[in-house]
């Protein structure tokens, strides 16, 4: 089946090893990616949406029309892109007045939003269109013994009316996807807590990040597993910066799900870019015998 990947700004420029991990791993599961030229920032659901919501709808709609031209659904690999593209896609499908307003703007560049495709996070498509068996079948080296503390982030699940992935209070999708590659998912008290990135004040996200990392440590998890580059930014480099501020170290390695999938499929550390992380992960790789 064919899908159009939307990698967004963070992965394209700052964390290209996540993009590489997605491309390599989903191909093995059987997902065919069709690239589209001309995508811009989704645009981001925090700052750009706060600036002007009509501009936010319109820029997102422009991106959606590029995928509509090819007639395949979009897969997102960042929770921020998911938040914007899924929400705008549904809002324009449901609200004809809004669609007309946006289309009158898009007309200036010869485009029109039709509402003919869907947008889903890649993990949802893997679960629903391919299934855990297909993921499991690609595993060459199960990550046995690796305890992964699950971090959902907000927009894989919420708003649930838009995302339609799982119960937002009792989700299981990421736990099941980790089990499919042989890892042990750890669901801790702060598994569903936000990373705090959108907050203007520093104090609130700092406390959230510290709380999440401390919870993970208290469960003796080996690493944190997540599905969003913005959450990753907050917990990887963010944990180093916060550690300096608090004069303590957390030492919780943070790994993007598709990197773990790549390891399980037999890829080495460099192929999935694990050597680029700020919080070192080398000791974990001994565990999973890479």
């Amino acid at each position, binding site marked *: 089946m064919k899908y159009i990947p939307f990698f967004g700004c963070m992965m394209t420029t*700052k964390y290209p090893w996540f993009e590489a991990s997605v491309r390599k791993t989903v191909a093995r599961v059987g997902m065919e990616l069709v690239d589209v030229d001309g995508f811009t*920032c989704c645009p981001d659901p*925090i700052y750009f949406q706060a600036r*002007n*919501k009509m501009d936010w709808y319109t820029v997102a709609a422009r991106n959606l029309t590029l995928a509509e031209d090819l007639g395949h659904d979009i897969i997102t690999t960042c929770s921020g892109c998911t938040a914007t593209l899924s929400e705008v896609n549904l809002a324009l499908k449901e609200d004809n007045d809004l669609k007309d307003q946006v289309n009158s703007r898009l007309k200036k560049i010869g485009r029109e939003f039709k509402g003919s495709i869907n947008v889903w996070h890649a993990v949802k498509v893997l679960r629903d269109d391919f299934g855990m068996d297909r993921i499991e079948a690609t595993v060459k080296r199960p990550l046995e013994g690796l305890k992964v503390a699950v971090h959902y982030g907000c927009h894989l699940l919420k708003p649930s009316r838009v995302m339609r992935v799982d119960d937002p209070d009792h989700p299981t999708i990421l736990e099941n996807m980790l089990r499919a590659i042989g890892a042990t998912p750890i669901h801790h008290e702060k598994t569903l807590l*936000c990373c705090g990135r959108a907050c203007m004040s520093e104090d609130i996200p700092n406390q959230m990040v510290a709380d999440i990392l401390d919870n993970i440590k208290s469960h003796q998890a080996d690493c944190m597993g997540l599905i969003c580059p913005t959450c990753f930014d907050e917990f990887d480099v963010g944990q180093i910066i916060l550690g300096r501020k608090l004069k303590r170290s957390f030492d919780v390695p943070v790994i993007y799900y598709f990197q773990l999938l790549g390891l399980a499929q037999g890829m080495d550390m460099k192929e999935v870019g694990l050597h680029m992380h700020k919080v070192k992960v080398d000791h974990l790789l001994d565990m999973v015998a890479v």
Partner: protein
Amino acid sequence: MHTQEKHKIDFSFREKLNGIAEGYRHNFCYQCGACVADCPAGMYSDHFNPRLILLKALLGFEDELIRPDSEIWDCTNCYTCAERCPQDVRPVDVIIALKNLCVRTGNAPELILKTSDPVLTSGITTKITSVVDRRRQEMGLAPVGTYPVDELKKITEGD
């Protein structure tokens, strides 16, 4: 509300908020407080309370809400309040409408424009440096393409 100062109730603020996308939703709020308990910004601070933000909007306490240091900027955009709300107010969407009103009236924190400007001037939020394509090449990826900034200019000049 937590202060002893007197505030003037101004229902005309509702009209202002109604004019912003999704802003009209504040009218449905009956102050039940379902949005409060699981709000992460509320959990980790003593000043953030989505119910009170909605109440201030309903009563028209514009001077408290529409300013660069307003509590609205501490919303984490997590949408938990939208899950909990029985009235489909989606407090987070009202907060975003309040933020739009701040930007429109020149009352937004500098960071908002600084972070969102690059979308319109370069097509993306992050910076494209010489390191980016080198790293992409190392990972076997194609270089970053060009971004159609001229198109974005045309479709965002509507206001």
